[in-house]
């Protein structure tokens, strides 16, 4: 319907009259910024609007092992930030309200819906997206290869989210059972595959 009754994280924040300053009061952005810079990459990659752009706060966060510094609008979701400002469009937005799991990324080892995480909340955390899965040579990793070889992909729109949920599962349980795999992707909707081959692909990736 009209966006009048479209409740998303963003509209909720806007409706609550949250401003940059207000958000800073709610989310301790400043507190988590400076100490978060890891030693591995002392210099952050600058992205997004210029520092000091109206309504933004300067923040640093790690995505796929790269530290980024960006002027972040407190209303942006992590999905917005990844897609619109880092160009990481592999993270798909299917509902923008935490129902479909297409935007799943891994944050500090846990799968999260990037549409339900405010970008500023990810400050100081390590985010991994589908683009961060391939081997250093750019080849499919074992889980991705298993998806390919088991025909676990049809339209592919849910695939990045499925892969990220499965990545978190395999990190915690390297040899998952079919039931564990089913449970791990139960927050990821798919309309094409009937899930069967996705579950097979995850279980077989664990056995490989």
């Amino acid at each position, binding site marked *: 319907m009209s966006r009048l009754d479209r409740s998303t994280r963003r509209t909720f924040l806007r409706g609550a009259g949250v401003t940059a300053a207000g958000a800073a009061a709610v989310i301790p952005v400043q507190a988590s910024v400076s100490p978060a810079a890891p030693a591995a990459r002392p210099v952050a990659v600058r992205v997004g609007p210029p520092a000091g752009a109206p309504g933004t706060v300067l923040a640093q966060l790690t995505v796929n092992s790269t530290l980024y510094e960006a002027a972040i609008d407190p209303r942006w979701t992590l999905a917005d930030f990844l897609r619109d400002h880092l160009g990481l469009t592999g993270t*798909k937005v299917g509902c923008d309200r935490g129902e479909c799991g297409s935007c799943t990324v891994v944050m500090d080892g846990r799968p999260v819906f990037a549409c339900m995480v405010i970008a500023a909340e990810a400050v100081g955390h390590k985010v991994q997206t589908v683009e961060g899965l391939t081997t250093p040579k750019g080849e499919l990793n074992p889980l991705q290869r298993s998806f390919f070889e088991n025909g676990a992909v049809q339209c592919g729109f849910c695939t990045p989210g499925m892969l990220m949920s499965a990545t978190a599962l395999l990190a915690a349980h390297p040899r998952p059972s079919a039931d564990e795999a089913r449970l791990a*992707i139960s927050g990821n909707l798919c*309309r094409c595959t*009937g899930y069967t081959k996705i579950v097979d692909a995850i279980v077989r990736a664990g056995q490989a």
Partner: protein
Amino acid sequence: MPKNIDVAKLLSSPEFMETWAQYPSLVEEEAAVIMEHLSKIHPTVPLTVPKARYAVVGTRQLRHNDVPRIKGTAVYTHDVAPVGMLYGAIRYAAQHAHAKIKAIDTSKAEALPGVRAVVTYKNVYNFGAPKRPIQARPPRFILQDEIFAPGDEVAGVAADTQDIAEEAVRLIDIEWGPLPSFFGDPESGLSADAPKILPDGNLGSENIRDVGDPAKAMAAADIVVEGRYSTQTLQHGPLEPKAVVMSWDGDQLTTWVSGQYLHGARSTLASIFGLPISKVRTIGEYMGGGFGDKSSPVDKFAYIAGVLSKMTSRPVRLYYSRREEFTSSVHKAANVHRVKAYAKRDGTLTAFDLKTFSDMGAHASTGSAQSGQEPFHRLYAYQGAHFEQRNVLTNRYRTGPMRDVNESSGVFSLEITMDRIAEQLGIDPVELRLKNVTGAKNPYDGFPLTSNGVREAITRGAETFGWKAKWHKPGARILGRKAHGVGMGCFASQKGSQGTPMSGIVKIERDGSVSVITGAQDVGAGQLTTMAMIAAEQLGSDLADTRAYGGDSGFTSDTGTSSSSRQTKSGGTGVRMAAVDAKEQLLKMALALQASGKPVFPAKDAGELEAEGSFVFLKADPSKRASFAQVMGSGANVIIGSATVIPPPRIAQTTFGATFTELEVDLDTGEVTVLDYVGAHDLGKIINLLGVEQQFDGGLLMGFGFALGEALTVDPVKGFSVNSTWENYPMATSLDVPLKTRPVWVESIDTIGPFGAKGMGEPVCTGPVASIPNAIYNAIGVRIYDQPITRDKILAAIAQMKPAS
């Protein structure tokens, strides 16, 4: 270079006659009908000549274009952002089901910083789009001052950011004048006291037809089984919402669109904006599922984006929210079926009397196809029938095609009816079906069916399932608080629809590798892999060096929409005939090939040569051979094979099948647990085994949703959607997958599909509807006539169960 096929030669060829001779019950008059149709057109449809051995067809092939999907690098429409792009948003009627705009004020929206354009019905026609209705009844324009459903578009905004655009649509003030609205069930929409949406009432269209002599056929029966059946409004739920990016460069329109039919989008946009087709280019290599939702990929929202782009001279992107997808996109129509089936005591059907009422919503894009009558037309034989089909306007959701084009609603009413006949006459449901299924001819119009494997599907399906051992009397097997039930049913649906253009291009490159250029849109079902396989089989190239490209109407040829399970037939036939053309050129070139000054092949005619695995060889002595690369190296830069095939107008494929379900109903909770499901599918001939497995897995889960859970609901007072989110619309998750599902493939070798193939994508989701309702009845002994069969209905039925005797 168009491929010319010699019709007379084809029709008189022994191979052709042999094909038809294999066709079991084809009678002379029927063959004559086909001949007559074929002879009127040129070039004609190539008929299937089955081969004894296939190099590629029928194998299990991975899909090369899955790699970008898995890496996250595949570009979907929402990922496209041309330089200078603006973000669009749409204002919907939302608070009204039927109303007229009395006043609209956009000044606050226009004053918002970052807003670049606002379009309403007042200014939409100032930018090139001619003012003519998109649909006639009710009149529907790009934007207009009357809305017919809450999901109707009222205004559009283009702005610097998505947030600004969404803010701006909220700032548009509208004063509404409500009009009479109706959103009840379609049958009651025709009653005299229903509110009238149009001055002359709510009837959208009707179609009444008698087949044979219905009165005589009914009189020949011993019993009549009568019932009222209803099915629900459904939503496709592709994971990717609709998306479009419009960009004008002078009078050239470039559109990125998530669509099942890029060439259809192209010609529609050309017509709306008054351009020659050549000046519109539609692009969409990857799309996130369609299921019919995107079979008309451009509609009002795309036209609005086009106008906004023209107003601002900048690219504009519109991306549906999930809620828009649920409320403003098309839907599968709710149906009411009133069925009377007439049969003799021995189970022979004599007649049908079928009245259907389809909820077309305020705007329908598929018309009569939504009625679900088709399974009645062609699944079983009958002497006579009376069909009445009424499409009823309501102020609910817009309706349009959705996977199986509502054949599931007809299968629901027909197969429960058949189950009731079997029970009343004391005949095994399997035997009743075998007694009545059609053979070579569609009883509705008398035209031949291109192949029919329903008999084999029933018998092999029953055998695999273990029907004889499992079947029992209704309500007869209750263990503790679990009622065990088994049910079966059949389905038939017209696929690979008639009239679709079939074309393709096959290029042999200078190194002997092969590129296939096709308009067959890969909606995720692996169409490009299928096209490559068909080309490789026909041409004799190595599949590893054969690659198909599509997703851009500027460089491909129209081969119909990837809807109604037709692309294997339409795109596949185009590619296959283009490969015939390319191969002819290649073999001619091979004939002239020399090595050390001597011809490589001691042959006078190219017909003495054959190709396989990217080698040309002499049929008489296969040791005499040359690779495609060697042949191409003899001078040709590239070979371009092409074909355009116009299909005969009245010959359409029909897919058939039979499904079997074993389940348990929990008598305390009403929960249904499916224990075993066998789907026997007549798919003509398998091209890619992986593809049919994938369609089976995914389609049946959607079908389980049709049967057991999914329904879009509107509130009965105001007609607003009450469950237009995935939280409230129960699409199956990974935890809802049935424990055991087994396919049975029946290859009936279709007479017009490439290598005998028929469509597969849609019937798999019709299958569950054929057998689940009957299995639930078999468990509890009480019929449920209203789909979906949800727990509340099951619990109400359990309350009526007779105590076990």
